[in-house]
């Protein structure tokens, strides 16, 4: 008698269990079936995003990439605080990308190039951050978690590329895709919002009419960036530090 009851109980439990499992799993299944946006999936290490910058195509005096970045990430919305000295403010305002002109010490050859976060495989900014706010995503993007950044600026001390900016003032206006706040550090995040919405380019790349900037997946041997990197030599800035940067340069 008791074994019969147990049997029935067991059957009921397994049906109930299946039903519960289906309730939990089904939405996920349907989401997949509906081809949801990539943002519903965790970031994977199968890809590593990076950029190739062909400095031979870069034109002196052009700063389209800077303008494109500023517009995309709401940096153009920033205004100097009332009473701020314009020159001092210019040193304090954030920049995610800037143009730099360098002259070779031996040959005197002048090269113009854009500089931004180099998205290192081993980022010094991540190493020194006390709270873990400075982090590297599985897909290679190095960025700041502004919820836990305490504004200590140690990452800015440690970055060999001077790629980071501190927000020195109150922010009146900002974009949903690029939140920012006084007292936190930020830098180029390879237009991470585009990654999470399935975009395939960065704002600086789109803005560059000379085709000097190429964004893509370094891990995919078939991607355009990988093919280009295989074709000709490329340079890492401060290669001596062995940070294995995700941003590579050609022509310097």
């Amino acid at each position, binding site marked *: 008698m008791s074994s019969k009851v147990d049997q029935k109980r067991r059957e009921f439990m397994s049906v109930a269990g299946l039903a519960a499992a289906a309730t939990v799993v089904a939405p996920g299944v349907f989401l997949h079936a509906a081809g949801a946006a990539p943002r519903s999936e965790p970031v994977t290490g199968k890809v590593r995003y990076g950029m190739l910058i062909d400095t031979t195509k870069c034109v002196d005096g052009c700063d389209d990439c800077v303008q494109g970045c500023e517009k995309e990430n709401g940096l153009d919305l920033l205004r100097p605080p009332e009473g701020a000295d314009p020159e001092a403010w210019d040193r304090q305002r954030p920049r995610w990308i*800037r143009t730099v002109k*360098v*002259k070779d*010490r031996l040959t005197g050859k002048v*090269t113009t190039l854009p500089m931004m976060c180099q998205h290192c495989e081993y980022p010094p900014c991540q190493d020194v951050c006390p709270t873990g706010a400075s982090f590297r995503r599985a897909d290679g993007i190095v960025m700041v978690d502004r919820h836990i950044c305490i504004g200590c600026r140690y990452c800015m001390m440690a970055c060999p590329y001077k790629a980071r900016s501190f927000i*020195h003032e109150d922010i009146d206006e900002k974009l949903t895709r690029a939140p920012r706040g006084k007292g936190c550090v930020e830098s180029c995040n390879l237009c991470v919002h585009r990654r999470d919405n399935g975009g395939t380019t960065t704002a600086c790349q789109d803005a560059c009419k000379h085709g000097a900037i190429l964004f893509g997946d370094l891990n995919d041997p078939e991607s355009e960036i990988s093919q280009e990197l295989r074709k000709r030599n490329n340079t890492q800035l401060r290669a001596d530090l062995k940070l294995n940067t995700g941003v590579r340069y050609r022509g310097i």
Partner: protein
Amino acid sequence: MKKIHYREWGIKSPVYWGLLAVLGVIMAAGGLAALYMEHNGHWVTGMNNQIVWGVPHVFAIFLIVAASGALNIAAFSSVFGKKIHKSLGRLSGILAMSLLVGGLLVLVLDLGQPTRLIVAMTKYNFKSIFAWNIFLYVGFLAIVAVYLYTMMERKAAKYYPTAGLVAFVWRLILTTGTGSIFGFIVARQGYDAAIMAPMFIIMSFAYGMAFYLLVLMFTFKMDGRPLGEKLLYRLKNLLGIFAAAVLYFVLVYHLTNLYGTENHEYEAFILRDGGIYTTLFWVGWIVLGLLVPMGIVFHPALGKTHGGIIAASLLVLLGGLVAMYVIVIGGQAFPMAMFPDKVIVASGFYDGVNGEPLYYAPSVWEFLLGIGGVAVALTATLVGVRLLKLLPVSLEDEIVDPHHS
């Protein structure tokens, strides 16, 4: 050695409260400056995206380094068995804790998000020396508190040697951690050197001793307590030796750098062409901060006057602040070698065009915050000696007996 008696600092109430009032005003100014900077954001300071750590860091690191050094006087007794120093241990402990609290306050109030301190206490990246330092600093306060207790409570006296050893080892690790904040930075030419940690330790010996001497002489003088000459001379001689040791480390640091061609430009910047940083290095740090005080304390006549010892201690402290300025600000002002075989001729982000140093003009708010931190440290010390039995009633030579160390 006779039995040492300790008694609360017995200066007259109006004098005591007057002192606290003066320090209170300085602390209030520092607090208001911090509020002002926090309310507006760092744009009201001289800091920018090139020089990211300013004068507050200079003061904070200086106070933290001095804090660990101030504990040495106690450690000489419990670790190295120098009995003469035992009577000095309690003041050493309270001064060390006070200086650390002052330094930490400045550091925390200069954060971009000081209200997120709780985040720093709950989320850790253990690869960061900053994260380690949070434990080292908090641990230091706890360990020194226990150490003080073993000095003051007879029932705990049997743990005194152990507590002393733990505190001494801890303070060495702490200053190693502070020096490594710079030592671990590979990106900047002036840092990224293992010698930073031991150099900071030896600097802490000097600055801690200078603070200690000043506080000891001041509190004893105000209270009319006798302070034996031999004991005082011993301490001032130690100050001179520590200053000489700092000089040695600075020499080794720069000589090592000068040997490597990659560092020549940085060395030229600090030692010859760096404008304000070069002046501060030679005049402020080397001459006024080390050579002159050494000359004073080892001078047969000057070194035996209270005025001379006070001047030497003040100069060592001034030199210490200047040293931190040269290290912290000078190290940032020198352009980073982003393109080692190239010269930057134009930049949209002030990258040190043509090797020009990066610009920083400190604001008054930053100085007020830093000085406020010093006032916090002094207030905590004075309140401590007023409320607790930390100061010996007498440090006459017959009582401490320097011949039986």
